């Protein structure tokens, strides 16, 4: 089936080959007949655009003279993209799928903090509060999975719940917890020692002293977990061996 399709693709001109028989009966065709969609723009595929690059995505992307700095014992997953002015301090961990884009302003992940899976940390040019718009994540902070942080400051020993959104200029003071799914509007301050939740984030209750003591323990526990991930990786990868094999097989000179 695949071979036939490939042959058809070569024989038929491009525009025709996108016609799929049986379309006339589908709901989409009826829909299209009612309100015809604007014709798809004619963009010719550029022949020199690479469709497959064996190198994949680079982890640390320097922009100009700003290069991401990763501490020696920080764990940054291979899936992560650090671009521009990003500093990952000692004991911190950045988990798979995260994107830390320090292209407009600085991003700093503090000691023993962790940015969990699929987070996007970005820094805007300027913050509505007028303060420096860098994203500063201080020590012992846990940023839950799938969060979005933009130009915010997170003081030491906080927990940001999963899927939370912190907008420009927000400040999360020390020893506070943001529940999962909370959205902090721009310029909002979460006071010290409190639990906030919701969209937009509202005060829920104050934290007990025991809960406050648990916060850095969570960060340290995740740091321990990142040690085990780190030990899976050798100091240097042997991916270059694969590259050599590939180049040899393709006849490209090394």
């Amino acid at each position, binding site marked *: 089936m695949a071979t036939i399709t490939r042959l058809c693709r070569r024989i038929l001109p491009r525009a025709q*080959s996108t016609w799929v028989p049986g379309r006339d009966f589908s709901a989409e065709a009826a829909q299209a007949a009612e309100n015809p969609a604007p014709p798809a723009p004619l963009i010719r595929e550029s022949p020199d655009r690479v*469709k497959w690059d064996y*190198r994949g*995505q680079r982890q640390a992307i*320097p922009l100009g003279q700003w290069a991401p700095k990763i501490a020696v014992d920080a764990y940054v997953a291979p899936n992560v993209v650090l671009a521009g002015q990003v500093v990952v301090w000692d004991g911190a961990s950045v988990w798979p799928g995260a994107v830390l884009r320090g292209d407009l302003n600085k991003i700093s992940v503090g000691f023993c903090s962790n940015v969990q899976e699929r987070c996007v940390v*970005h820094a805007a040019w300027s913050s509505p509060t007028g303060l420096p718009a860098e994203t500063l994540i201080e020590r012992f902070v846990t940023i839950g999975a799938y969060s979005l942080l933009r130009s915010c400051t997170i003081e030491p020993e906080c927990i940001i719940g999963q899927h939370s959104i912190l907008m420009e200029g927000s400040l999360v003071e020390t020893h506070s917890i943001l529940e999962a799914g909370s959205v902090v509007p721009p310029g909002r301050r979460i006071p010290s020692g409190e639990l906030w939740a919701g969209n937009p984030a509202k005060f829920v209750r104050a934290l007990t002293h025991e809960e406050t003591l648990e916060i850095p323990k969570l960060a340290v526990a995740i740091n321990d977990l990142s040690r085990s991930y780190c030990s899976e990786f050798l100091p240097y990868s*042997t*991916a270059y061996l694969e590259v050599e094999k590939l180049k040899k097989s393709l006849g490209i000179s090394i």
Partner: protein
Amino acid sequence: MGTMGRAFYAVGFWIRETGQALDRLGSRLQGNYLFQEQLSRHRTLMNLFEKAPSVAKNAFVAPNASLTGEVYVGPSSSIWYGCVVRGDVNSVSIGSGTNIQDNSLIHVAKSNIAGKVLPIHIGDNVTVGHSAVLHSCTVEDEAFIGMGATLLDGVVVEKHAMVAAGALVRQNTRIPSGEIWGGNPAKFLRNLKDDEIAFISQSATNYANLAEAHAAENAKDFDKSELEKVLQKKFTGQDGEYDLKAGVVG
């Protein structure tokens, strides 16, 4: 290469082969068969049978983004890191000067409860924020989708409208021009001021410029990026942070 040189090269080769064989032996002992895995097989632009993405030449597509199927990307647009744009079931067309920021997902439905399946049309100069989820919706020119927003089937965001961060816009909602909608479920919040409307088009331009810098950096091949690393180490002065780390005070 003289005979001595050839001899050294051969010995080097034997040592490397032995080393690799030892590496594979060690992996087998660990029960780790990763050495059989090939390189990164991630395909940034992936076609499905005859449907292939059509990307303008000066658009920036991050290497770990995934464009699959029938996707049209206009000139000066940018698809940032970790995005997934799936035109497998229906078509996705992204206009010019538009930016789809990191970790977003643009997908088209095959069928939905209402029975109407719409292709996605994203107009020119649109800003789609980080981690947005766009599912079978239409976004007209110069609109702004806040980060983390979720737009469900059949949503139409008109020109100069804004969807606030974290909003969940339910099916078939029409967001009129010049308004901000937000919350879960998305409701009308307030009207956009004139300078905010101007900001939308400004942000699209800013992102287009940023995309050029990222595109240039990602397109660098291995030798160039290694050379730059060496140059950086040599010529960049040690900044204040280094002094702090080294314990130099004052």
